[in-house]
């Protein structure tokens, strides 16, 4: 079947089987950052942005991306580097397998929540599992990153 959608800013026309899931489809198209961690929609590793909202690409038919804007980490490399630096400075990226899904969800959170508390951050990210870091290093890096973004925004506004 035909599928037309935006992938990381590029409008694509693809042929796809009706039962292909978005996760497998994206990896086939070279978006290797999108990982598969489970079969029960519990881990969040496969999180991508669909029209700015975080969704589980493992639970979505590729055909449902029709007309939508799909963004994976491949399309947000600069932003990933910017946040990633904070994670790396804590040593909290560890094995890295949960990183892309987790970081994409942080970008979604930035869009949706204004000035979230630590509790709100944790709740927003609850669907992103990690087995290496114990989460607290991730929280430290997010708080530092949000503070940095706030300062940056203030400085840019003053200019």
């Amino acid at each position, binding site marked *: 079947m035909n599928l037309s959608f935006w992938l990381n800013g590029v409008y694509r026309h693809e042929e796809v089987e009706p039962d292909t899931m978005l996760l497998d489809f994206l990896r086939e198209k070279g978006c290797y950052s999108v990982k598969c961690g489970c079969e029960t*929609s519990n881990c969040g590793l496969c999180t991508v942005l669909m029209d700015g909202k*975080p969704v589980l690409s493992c639970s979505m038919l590729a055909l449902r991306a029709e007309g939508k804007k799909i963004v994976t980490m491949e399309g947000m490399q600069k932003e990933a580097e910017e946040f990633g630096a904070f994670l790396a400075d804590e040593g909290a990226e560890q094995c890295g397998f949960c990183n892309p899904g987790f970081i994409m969800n942080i970008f979604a959170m930035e869009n949706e929540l204004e000035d979230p508390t630590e509790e709100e951050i944790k709740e927003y990210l609850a*669907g992103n599992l990690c087995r290496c870091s114990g989460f607290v290093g991730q929280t430290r890096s997010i708080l530092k990153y949000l503070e940095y973004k706030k300062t940056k925004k203030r400085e840019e506004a003053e200019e």
Partner: protein
Amino acid sequence: MLKIKSYVKVNSIAEAYELNQKKSACVLGGMIWLKMGNRNVSTAIDLSGLGLDTVQELEDEYVIGCMTTLHDLEINKSLDAFTQGALRESLRHIVGVQFRNCATVGGSIFGRYGFSDVLTLFLAMDTWVDLYQAGRVPLAEFVKMKKDRDILQAVIVKKTPLKTVYLSQRNTETDFPVLTCAVSLIGEQPRTVIGARPGCAMVVEDKEDFLYGFTEMSKKEKTEAARRFSEYAAANVPVGSNMRGSGEYRRLLTEVLTRRAWETLGGIEK
């Protein structure tokens, strides 16, 4: 593995209903459950082109389109105020935001799953389902109906004055509930719903009228009524065992959650 022969993004509910009469056809909700199974679906019917993914607030009711995601429900300010935060409470434990951006209210309600937080809360409100063939059916009746090939278009919540509280017990913060409890005053009518028993949510009839006139009761009377009714509920709600808990524990929880919910509804501080 999920196998689909053909996928149709329908242009009308009528078309969806037609296609759905075939035994191996399937209406796509959030697909969370569908993709976990090993089904061979002949026709996958996608309703996402029909604009059914919004919450319409009318004068005397909310019309929640079946394709409304659980997250959109969660952040709907009007429903949040109408339910005094109970709707949000019933949703926020469900796995994660990404999950709730996929799962739909239609899928949750039509499935009539035992573990459903959503079903428990909706059953505690003046809720109706809008089925294509059967029309508007009260939710309390719908939960008892067998699954058929009708299409659930919308979930209707009447704006009858509502006070409601939602509680659940879980082994981990984002796990399935071990027990769910929603209590409400619909107008002056008290209603108690217990779910994840592990059976499907059910209304607990107050046969002895413990809660009759609850709003007018004094604090002491409310505490007493809550205590007596919760003991009654624990003695009368059928509960069973599963991986997450024994029937005995669920009986204990029925009493605790029912009492706490009614105390909270009655404004009794701990």
